């Protein structure tokens, strides 16, 4: 040993390339989490301490379940890569603020253990864990998961008033009634933009979500391919088929800004693992999400369709990836 050290230093011999970009999985996950902060703040502002409680519980239990699973299976503990944190955060943002404590815990268990780890862990899951978590809760606890409360800024009211979401009103009572409730169209849009409306904790403030999305675009963590085609398709369908006075009388803006469209299109459908990797495939994926969302909203039994739309398209991601192979440099273009 000594001799070797004196003779010459031993160098690391490994395969090229020898340098790497400083991007890492962890940095991406934490950045996406950070980009959700504005929406979280708005959610906390409108829905109060209960919202913060639900969010915190989701995050803590998600990270805990991830830790537990990895520990039991004696795998590397990778909780600081931020992926379980992000899943917990997204799950929490997809819950109504009024849920009792066991809902976040059960949802996190389903998201982390069933959807992610049992499928092989990060990178191997087919479905978006947070969305499966939510779908599971919606199916198992339909009442609790649709107990919407009136947003009450500045934490004034202790007992929140139960109400319906704009999409719920639209479905049950129609467009005219919705406008009536909010006064006029402009007022409705402004409520939707700021987030002053009933809905899940993190989905209501379109402005805050757009701010976060802008950050992700700037960092190139997401590209236009999924969100724009998603929202564009939904808007088009809403405009053409969404109205009650014939074709082309719908209100696309209402559909874009309400429900989970903003949160879903920018932050959930863009999840790398569960969406196609090829840009061309992503366009198809986005169109599919938009189409299915509107199909459910307009024709389905639920007022909201973003979650199921994304989950259904998740199934097709591997297939889409197989269908859209990249164009090899120099390959002869097919006529």
């Amino acid at each position, binding site marked *: 040993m000594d001799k070797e050290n004196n003779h010459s230093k031993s160098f690391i011999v*490994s395969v*090229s390339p020898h*340098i790497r*970009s400083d991007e890492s*999985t962890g940095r991406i996950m934490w950045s996406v989490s950070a980009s959700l902060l504005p929406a979280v703040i708005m959610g906390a502002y409108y829905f109060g301490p209960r919202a913060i409680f639900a969010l915190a519980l989701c995050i803590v239990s998600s990270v805990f379940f991830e830790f537990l699973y990895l520990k039991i299976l004696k795998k590397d503990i990778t909780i600081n890569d931020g992926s379980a944190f992000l899943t917990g955060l997204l799950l929490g943002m997809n819950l109504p603020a009024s849920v009792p404590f066991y809902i976040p815990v059960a949802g996190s268990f389903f998201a982390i253990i069933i959807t992610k780890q049992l499928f092989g*862990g990060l990178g191997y899951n087919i479905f978006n864990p947070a969305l499966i978590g939510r779908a599971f809760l919606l199916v198992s606890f339909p009442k609790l998961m649709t107990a919407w409360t009136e947003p009450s800024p500045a934490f004034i009211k202790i007992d929140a008033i139960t109400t319906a979401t704009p999409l719920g009103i639209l479905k049950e009572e129609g467009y005219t009634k919705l406008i009536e409730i909010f006064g006029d169209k402009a007022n409705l849009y402004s409520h939707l933009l700021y987030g002053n409306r009933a809905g899940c904790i993190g989905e209501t403030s379109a402005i805050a979500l757009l701010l976060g999305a802008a950050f992700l675009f700037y960092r190139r963590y997401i590209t236009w391919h999924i969100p724009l085609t998603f929202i564009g398709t939904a808007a088009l369908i809403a405009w053409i088929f969404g109205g009650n006075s014939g074709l082309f009388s719908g209100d696309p803006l209402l559909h874009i800004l309400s429900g989970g469209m903003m949160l879903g299109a920018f932050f959930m459908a863009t999840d790398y693992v569960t969406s196609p990797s090829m840009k061309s495939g992503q366009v198809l994926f986005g169109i599919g999400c938009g189409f299915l969302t509107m199909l459910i909203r307009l024709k389905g039994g639920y007022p909201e369709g973003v979650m199921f739309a994304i989950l259904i398209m998740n199934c097709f991601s591997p297939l889409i990836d197989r269908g859209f192979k990249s164009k*090899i440099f*120099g390959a002869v273009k097919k006529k």
Partner: protein
Amino acid sequence: MGFLVFKGGIHPADKKELSADKKITETIKPPKVIIPLSQHIGAPCKPVVTINQEIKKGELIGEATGFVSAPVHSSVSGKVISIIEIPNIMGRMVTSVVVENDFKDEWTLLKDNPDYMKLSPDEIKEKIKNAGIVGMGGATFPAIVKLSPPKEKPIDTVIINGSECEPYLTGDYRLMIEKPSEIIEGLKIIMKVLGVSNGFIGIEDNKPLAIESLKKAVINSEGINIKVCSLRTRYPQGAEKMLIKAITGREVPPRALPMDVKVVVHNAGTANAIYEAVRFGKPLIDRVVTVSGEGIREPKNLLVKIGTPISHLIEECGGLKENAVKVISGGPMMGFAIASLDMPVTKGTSGITVLTEKEIVHTEKFRPCIKCGRCIDACPMGLMPSMLSVYSERGFFEGAKEYNLFDCFECGCCTYVCPSKRPIVHLIRLAKTQVKP
């Protein structure tokens, strides 16, 4: 012309500032040189010297043994002290001639022939062949082969590759600044041999001084159509196929050669060597080597005799810093990490890059693919490196083949960008050894 781009690629920090302003200087004469008889792609040479034989500088020591082969010459005058087997950078054993330097620098016949442009293409080719010139960018393909395209493949364009897109390396850059006319003359010779009237020199736009220098040299040489192209700086701009695409807009089909799209590419260093061979009859016995990186005390551009041990160069550059952990023959993107500094500089050694803990990545702890698609966007060949790496990781090599495994030229872009730090190139190489093309 005027496309100047290719798809994909990456922007690593080029780190050229470490050595870009260092003039090319000759190394102190090495006491002995170890000259491998296979420094090129193709058949190894047959030794034509015996132990204890006195030889002169530039004397033939290894004879080419086929069409795709290149003779090897002694870079010093002195005595052959042994003929040994040493590993090359790829770990293959290569017969090598060890020559003890007598420091007399006695040349074999060198003759200045200022009228070299009057030589016939065949005479020129003979000189280039005898000089043992190979692609000096690192590919080490015998130059003569590229200059002898088969009849059915006419050539209409010659490109001199001055991109030098690997981070740290500045040898070609210095050559372009210090010897622009020689490079232009080299290009003219190549154009004459191939009977081509379109010549291009492609340089990345992060090297404005080199572009200027060559533009000036072109103005001075009249009556010939040579264009200096400023290319967008992006790795791997210097890869032949990307360079051809950027300059001519032509795409070399998978598994085909540049000559299939009527183009021949030579590196700037090779053009200089061709000029020296044709004008003076000088064989390829020295080359410019950049010694750089955060782990070396004094980065330099050195004119090095082939066969000089790498340790000699390191010493000349003030030695390694304490924190040096990796020594690479070539640049950090495609170079080979070497285990021992005893290895000699060969015709393909474009640089020695010494890295510290800070620059390197430990790849033992990589994460699963998160399908982010970054590698797909970065791959200049339009492959899906993620699929290649996943298939190879699972041992499903046939699957990798379906994803065009063999079109990968191991540029490393995919691996560079992967946020999960997956050793994609490594997995691709593994797969390549497991299935037949």
